[in-house]
């Protein structure tokens, strides 16, 4: 049996961060990294850029080509883990290997959702889009079938970035969104409207309050979709972008507690000794509400990976709580949203500024003297100052009047907090 001090399952953000975290504490303990995917660690959010031709394959690498070697990581790419045994401190692979570990990190991410009740979803030309292999498969299909029209099911972030790639390729694209507006999970209504307007200008049709009921195919290939509102749309390609579920299947039967995701404490420890989880598969404490939630976003995955890695190597790192935040450019319209984007009831207050012509919008959501959320469309400069105030839960009641002013800056902040930011230690863990 092969044995390793640190075993990491996964090869994306949380896994890479965990390697860094381990190396900050332990310069030479063996690290083995197993991944089902075959590629060198790549930037997952770039897959839509790859499809759209905005970046080439050589730009996909999330870390330089010699990174594993320089970090002292032994890789087993293209290897699937089928079973985790926390008692024995081993994992089994699909190839029949058993690997022993001292500390294990599960950072396997999520699995895209395909609706089970949609007839015809197994037709050719129907894809999900979360991996580099998906990007290649979609690109090949587009080329082979000379695809000119597509439907993207789901108006969230993955859906939107997929749309952007497709229109970049000159493919006429329709978005089908179940909610009454796009980006309903990350935007307020005004921001959704601005985003939709920008997409309309780019020729993208958005159908809201409906979804696909059935896919139509000819010769096994998708040719259209029947919507729940009765309408039928033709298409030569269809992408399901309706969300991702934590890939908890890996811990089934292992005795490791999972809910929606694998449950972890503030040290990224699971219920099993010496087993950690981080990234999109993990269900960790959220900063604002305090409960354990899955917040599948890139910066959380990185921070969780660092915390897990440091702790696996014997340090005492603490997860400070997850905060929802997204930065996404829609065609050429930059947007950022952080935390709570709409007043949740009494005690909440909203400050906003809208310029409909310029497609520019800024909004802050306040609760009990603190900023708990923000939305920026168009004018995103210095948005991070607000993110910092949310994350550090700074009382802004004294500076409420200047929060929305044009010359708002670090200089507007309470002196004690400003001093922490200027010293560069506000993020120190």
């Amino acid at each position, binding site marked *: 049996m092969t044995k390793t001090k640190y075993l990491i399952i996964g090869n994306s953000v949380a896994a890479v961060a965990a390697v860094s975290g381990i190396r900050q504490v332990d310069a030479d303990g063996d690290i083995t990294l197993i991944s089902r995917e075959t590629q060198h660690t790549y930037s997952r959010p770039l897959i839509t850029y790859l499809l759209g031709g905005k970046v080439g394959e050589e730009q996909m690498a999330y870390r330089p080509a010699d990174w594993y070697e320089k970090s002292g990581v032994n890789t087993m790419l293209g290897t699937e883990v089928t079973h985790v045994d926390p008692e024995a401190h081993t994992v089994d692979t699909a190839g029949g290997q058993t690997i022993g570990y001292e500390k294990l990190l599960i950072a396997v991410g999520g699995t895209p959702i395909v609706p089970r009740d949609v007839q015809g979803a197994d037709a050719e030309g129907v894809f999900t889009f979360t991996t580099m292999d998906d990007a290649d498969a979609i690109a090949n299909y587009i080329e082979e079938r000379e695809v000119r029209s597509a439907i993207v099911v789901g108006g969230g972030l993955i859906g939107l970035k997929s749309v952007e790639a497709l229109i970049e390729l000159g493919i006429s694209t329709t978005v089908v969104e179940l909610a009454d507006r796009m980006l309903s999970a990350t935007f307020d209504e005004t921001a959704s409207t601005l985003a939709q307007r920008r997409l309309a200008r780019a020729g993208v049709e958005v159908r809201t309050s409906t979804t696909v009921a059935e896919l139509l195919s000819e010769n096994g290939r998708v040719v259209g979709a029947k919507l729940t509102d009765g309408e039928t749309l033709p298409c030569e390609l269809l992408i399901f972008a309706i969300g991702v579920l934590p890939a908890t299947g890996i811990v089934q039967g292992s005795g490791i507690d999972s809910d929606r995701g694998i449950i972890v404490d503030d040290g990224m420890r699971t219920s099993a000794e010496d087993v950690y989880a981080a990234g999109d598969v993990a269900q960790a404490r959220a900063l604002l509400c305090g409960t354990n939630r899955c917040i599948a976003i890139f*910066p959380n995955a990185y921070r969780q990976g660092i915390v897990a890695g440091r702790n696996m190597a014997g340090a005492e790192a603490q997860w400070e709580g997850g905060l929802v935040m997204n930065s996404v450019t829609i065609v050429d319209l930059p947007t950022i949203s952080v935390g709570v984007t709409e007043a949740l009831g009494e005690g909440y207050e909203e400050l906003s500024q809208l310029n409909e012509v310029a497609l520019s919008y800024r909004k802050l959501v306040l609760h009990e003297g603190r900023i708990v959320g923000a939305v920026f469309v168009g004018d995103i400069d210095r948005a*991070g100052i607000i993110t910092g105030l949310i994350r550090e839960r700074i009382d802004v009641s004294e500076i409420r009047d200047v929060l929305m002013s044009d010359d708002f800056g670090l200089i507007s902040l309470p002196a004690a907090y400003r001093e922490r930011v200027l010293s560069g230690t506000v993020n120190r863990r």
Partner: protein
Amino acid sequence: MKRIRICEEHCIGCGLCEVHCVVQHSRSRNIIRAFREERDGIVPGVKVERDGHLSFALQCRHCEDAPCIEACMTGAMHRDPETGAVLCDTERCVGCWMCIMACPAGAVQRGASGKVASKCDLCIGEDVPVCVANCPNEALVLEDDGDD
């Protein structure tokens, strides 16, 4: 590593740091040509914030646990292994602005092209960053924290 300490009580808000930063990051490295011909293509990495008599010059804090590096989805934002400076590899940056969302100091900007991030690089190749070297009142001071 080398760090720039900001002394707001010494800052007179003159803006010379911004001027020298622009010149340093121009092709010509000539103050007249930089401002007459190249100014539109350069976003200075230092910015003076002013509010009445209070002012200070702010550039990237090159944080130890840098949120911009953690949030960067491409790996473009990285720490220079030799100097410890936080740098953006503009060949790999796609302008997703995760760094702008994450930086608590608001010290990462959209570059002049609007397509890649721009920030203080601590003046690569210079012993002393030009904003520090040209500050008339020691409102920016270079320190070495001895940590590498």
